[in-house]
């Protein structure tokens, strides 16, 4: 199935540290990059060489279930890379060739890689259902890494990566705009609660650095405002940073060098404000990148790292919450459920905030991806994303009537409204988990904490 993916132009690549590769060198360069990648990580070779093609992953993959395209079966998707890998880097492929499923490298195969590696949300659900635990997400990320080093990058990713590297956030907001919208949100908060709730930026000597998703400044501002309310209520000493106003790390999804650079900013930004703790906002792959990749990318990290949902879940006894009279469900973002093990915190919070919490089936680490993960949020991919989200739509439909779907991930927040509208369920509202805390929090309780520093770890 052809996908309408727009690729970045060659002249835009050097700004994200990628060099264009001439058409004639593509094949030889691919083999060299593949060789480097297999020396870089154990997962690629061991996952490609052990697949027996049993097909158990087919029923686990929302991408295959939604599109019905054979190459969207995880084993077949990985097979596009496997045939080249086996041919050039294993004994069986070199000796037996096509008999062992090997194939020669050719220009056409790279087009297939682009096509199918960008129809995968890297949600890792196949790894949960593979008898061997083969994670096709890893293979896909390896493939995307190789493609981007060949100069084949979706322009959407390239733009975001450039923004991340220059301004420290996905949308490329510069400091004046950050200050401006924070002041605006402070006014909104004043109007709503009658309290002077600050949203500090670059405040020196602060204990906690909060990294929201940059979309929270404009689109999902309820999340940031709710977070500010909770921090104010708890009397936390926190700040945003203008040099890193982003939990997301798109480098994780297509280029490890970009990932490393952007990840390195966490440490720099935390040192700059003198923070002891880095608190990550609601962003799925961002939380996985920070929690699971920081050590491997940039080594020692002298700060605590926590997710805002974990912090709020810990502080629930201190918050005076009134249950909202709504029927709500929680979507477990793939990178929380399978990628970073954050499933109990959001549930605890939801149970405290809403009267009727219903669970999706399946949920937690077996939850289906919404179809917006893995960096596929580009406009031109909307039609495909709707297909990828078919399973999720079915899950939601079986829970109707619903008032609210809590999606604590910025990619999911972008995908869900489109998805439920596409499948005719436009009346359901979506938003973060923290948004609910903001709505059900009784700010009068904050007086209890006035003037004291809560002893949080």
């Amino acid at each position: 199935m052809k996908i309408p993916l727009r690729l970045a132009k060659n002249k835009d690549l050097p700004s994200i540290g990628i060099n264009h590769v001439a058409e004639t060198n593509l094949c030889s360069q691919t083999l060299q990059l593949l060789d480097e990648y297999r020396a870089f990580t154990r997962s690629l070779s061991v996952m490609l060489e052990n697949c027996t093609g049993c097909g158990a992953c087919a029923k686990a993959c929302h991408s295959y279930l939604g599109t019905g395209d054979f190459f969207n079966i995880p084993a077949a998707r990985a097979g596009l890379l496997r045939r080249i890998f086996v041919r050039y880097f294993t004994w069986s492929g070199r000796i037996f060739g096509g008999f062992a499923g090997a194939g020669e490298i050719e220009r056409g195969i790279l087009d297939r890689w682009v096509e199918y590696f960008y129809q995968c949300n890297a949600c890792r659900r196949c790894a949960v259902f593979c008898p061997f635990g083969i994670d096709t997400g890893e293979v896909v990320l390896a493939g995307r890494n190789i493609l981007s080093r060949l100069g084949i990058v979706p322009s959407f990713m390239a733009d975001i990566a450039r923004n991340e590297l220059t301004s420290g956030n996905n949308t490329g907001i510069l400091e004046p705009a950050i200050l401006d919208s924070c002041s605006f949100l402070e006014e909104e908060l004043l109007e709503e609660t009658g309290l002077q709730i600050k949203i500090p930026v670059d405040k020196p000597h602060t204990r906690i650095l909060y990294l929201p998703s940059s979309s929270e400044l404009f689109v999902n501002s309820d999340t940031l405002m709710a977070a500010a309310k909770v921090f104010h209520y708890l009397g936390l000493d926190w700040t945003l940073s203008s040099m890193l106003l982003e939990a997301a790390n798109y480098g994780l999804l297509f280029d490890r060098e970009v990932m490393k650079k952007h990840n390195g900013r966490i440490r720099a930004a935390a040192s700059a404000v003198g923070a002891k703790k880095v608190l990550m906002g609601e962003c799925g792959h961002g939380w996985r990148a920070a929690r699971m990749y920081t050590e491997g990318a940039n080594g020692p990290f002298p700060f605590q790292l926590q997710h805002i949902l974990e912090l709020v879940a810990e502080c629930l006894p201190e918050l005076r919450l009134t249950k909202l009279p709504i029927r709500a469900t929680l979507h477990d973002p793939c990178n929380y459920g399978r990628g970073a093990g954050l499933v109990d915190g959001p549930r605890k919070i939801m149970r405290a905030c809403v009267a009727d919490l219903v669970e999706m089936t399946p949920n937690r680490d077996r939850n289906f991806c919404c179809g917006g993960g893995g960096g596929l949020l580009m406009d031109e991919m909307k039609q495909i994303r709707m297909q990828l989200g078919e399973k999720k739509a079915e899950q939601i439909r079986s829970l109707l009537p619903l008032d609210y779907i809590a999606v604590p991930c910025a990619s999911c927040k972008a995908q869900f409204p489109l998805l439920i509208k596409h499948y005719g369920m436009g009346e359901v509202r979506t938003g973060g988990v923290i948004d609910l805390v903001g709505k059900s929090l009784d700010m009068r309780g904050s007086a209890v904490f006035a003037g004291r520093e809560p002893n949080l770890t």
Partner: protein
Amino acid sequence: MEFFMGSVLPYGAFSVFLGGVLFRVSGWLRTPVPFQLTLFSVPRNRIGKICLIFSEVLLCRTLFRQDKLLWVWVWLFHLSLFMVIFGHLFGIFYLRDQFCLVGFRPEQSQVLSVFLGGIWGTLMALSLLALLYRRIFNLEVRRLSSPDSYFDLLLLLAITLTGIFMYAPGFHPELHDVRAYMAGLLLFDPIPLPRSPIFVAHFLLVSLLLLYFPFSRLVHLAGFLVIRLMLVEAPPEYPIPGHKRPRSIFTISKFQPEIPLFSKNSVKREGRSV
């Protein structure tokens, strides 16, 4: 020729098998795992992790969850393979008297050994046929297969069938001869192969399997554990101390942020608003 088949081939095949598998596994283990690939939810303590891996190894837990029918055949095949290998070891060494060790009379042990060997062998053949059927008639799996996927199954099936065929009257090799031959191999003093065509065929096919094993997908018997160990690794704890060993050379190369750490504007704004 007889010398080659009876003496060179078994040693050669076994060395290739052992050396090849060790080489491949050590090749995987030598490559770094630059990032934790923990697949949640994973047990926190060591006992939980060991239980998880054992339930995967012994029961194919994941497959059971996903596809019960496939699980039946896969699990049955691996179980019968395991049983048959043990049956060979004990049956040949004790000349079918192995059940005397648990209190049976010799004639009972003979019958039981023949009976159990026949049952497990048949189950193994049936499960292989079922897997082959699935590979051919399930459209998805057929497209996922390459010629070697069929070859693996057919080779195992051929070994099983020649094994079962030895039960047929007239084709039965003398167990004494087989034991004497195996003893000769183990004591590095090989004697000629027993004169039974069906035994020789069975023996040659097993040698072929051993030769082929390390190069094929069958090596998943070992690779499986390598993957599982990656997936149950403990996630990092923060703060990460400076003396912790780097996970790979990727960790070591340094990065400096390109934009200034502090900006006057924002500090001024803070000053005003406080």
